[in-house]
């Protein structure tokens, strides 16, 4: 059954990629074909955020129950989340260049993804700096949780305050209200597909961690 699901995901991804370039029409108010990036950029950003929540959740579970599998899960989520976060930043930057003629605008939304990148980087850096597996699990779990409570400030609080000082340069690119049906379909499908891809890789990463752990006496 898993095989079938993977096959469906693979085929589905191919269809979505085709549809994103050749079936969905370019949206209005966007420069040329640049609106197509929303099918990639937004899912990446969403997955990066979900991965962060997942890492924080498993960190909390680890600190409670001290089962090393939770640490495997947290680090798997963080590793993959980091990759998706980098992709989200890069795709967003490309879009910014096309749309507003600058790779970076220091818009609050953009900087919130940078913050997530920094947190992921710090977490993974911390894990790399500790040899003992239990200590590594505990300290990185503690850091993940502190980061988890501080990230909302820059992601949600500051953009709401900033808006009163600066005009928000992000047009309604994330607003779903203005999407035509074909764009909406591909958009939601892309979100689901990338989430499924993440979950697949996440499970693989956890399995690998477990195998590596059991291989070492």
């Amino acid at each position: 059954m898993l095989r079938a699901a993977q096959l469906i995901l693979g085929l589905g991804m191919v269809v979505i990629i085709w549809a994103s370039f050749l079936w969905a029409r370019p949206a209005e108010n966007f420069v040329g074909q640049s609106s197509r990036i929303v099918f990639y950029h937004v899912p990446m950003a969403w997955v990066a955020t979900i991965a962060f929540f997942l890492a924080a959740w498993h960190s909390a579970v680890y600190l409670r129950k001290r089962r090393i599998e939770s640490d495997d899960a947290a680090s798997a989520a963080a590793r993959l989340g980091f990759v998706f976060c980098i992709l989200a930043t890069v795709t967003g930057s490309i879009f910014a260049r096309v749309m507003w003629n600058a790779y970076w605008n220091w818009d609050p939304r953009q900087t919130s993804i940078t913050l997530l990148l920094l947190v992921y980087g710090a977490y993974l850096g911390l894990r790399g700096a500790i040899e003992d597996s239990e200590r590594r699990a505990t300290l990185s779990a503690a850091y993940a949780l502190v980061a988890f409570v501080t990230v909302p400030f820059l992601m949600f609080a500051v953009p709401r305050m900033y808006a009163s000082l600066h005009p928000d340069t992000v047009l309604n690119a994330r607003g779903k209200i203005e999407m035509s049906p074909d764009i909406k379909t591909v958009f939601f499908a892309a979100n689901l597909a990338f989430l499924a891809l993440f979950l697949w890789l996440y499970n693989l990463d956890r399995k690998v961690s477990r195998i590596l752990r059991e291989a070492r006496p």
Partner: protein
Amino acid sequence: MSGASARPGLFGAAHALFLKDLLSEWRTRTSTNALLLFAFAVLILVGYAVGPTSLTPEDRPAVHSVLLWIVLFFSAMTGLSRVFVKEEDAGTGAALRLSAPPHAVLLGKLLANLTLLGAVTLFVVPLFLALMSFEVKSPALFVLLLVFGNLGLASACTFTAAIVAKASAKGTMFAVLAVPLLLPPLVGAVMGTRVAATEADFFAGLDFVRLLVAYDGVVTTAAFILFDAVWRE
């Protein structure tokens, strides 16, 4: 009767630890002097590069607000990890674990870091105001931002110091771990300082004070909840 209650409570232990750190630091004063000198050096560099003569009066509030907090931030990165790192380096960590409850340790170290950061702030801010001709239209708001900004910096840095004390590459790891945690309060403090520099109305920048207070509460609480796990490793 009194013999059985010889163990100090949480606040008593924290107070004792705080005084111990203060006293041991006062005896040598090496790290405090180094830190003040460092803060002064950054200030001079900043003054040379973007001093008041090289900026128009309109640009000054924005640039100088961020520079002030950069000086404080770099000072924090240099000096605030010592409270825990020195215990591990000197081999007194085990004794500390045995002699005081974890929350007392965190509170004591937090107070020590707050004092240190406060000393740097008291040193840097007047110099900054003078050297940079930094005009603050709303002093009350400015003071509040400094107080709550410092509290946020100290809380996050103290907890991060506890985490890196047991890791390798402590110096770099401390900065790497602290930066993401400190971006929210620093952004809030910088934006608030800009408002304090440009507007005389105290309430104009109160939003940023609220942000800082919220952040301080969240980080300090999270630190106290998680410290036990970190300390016992």
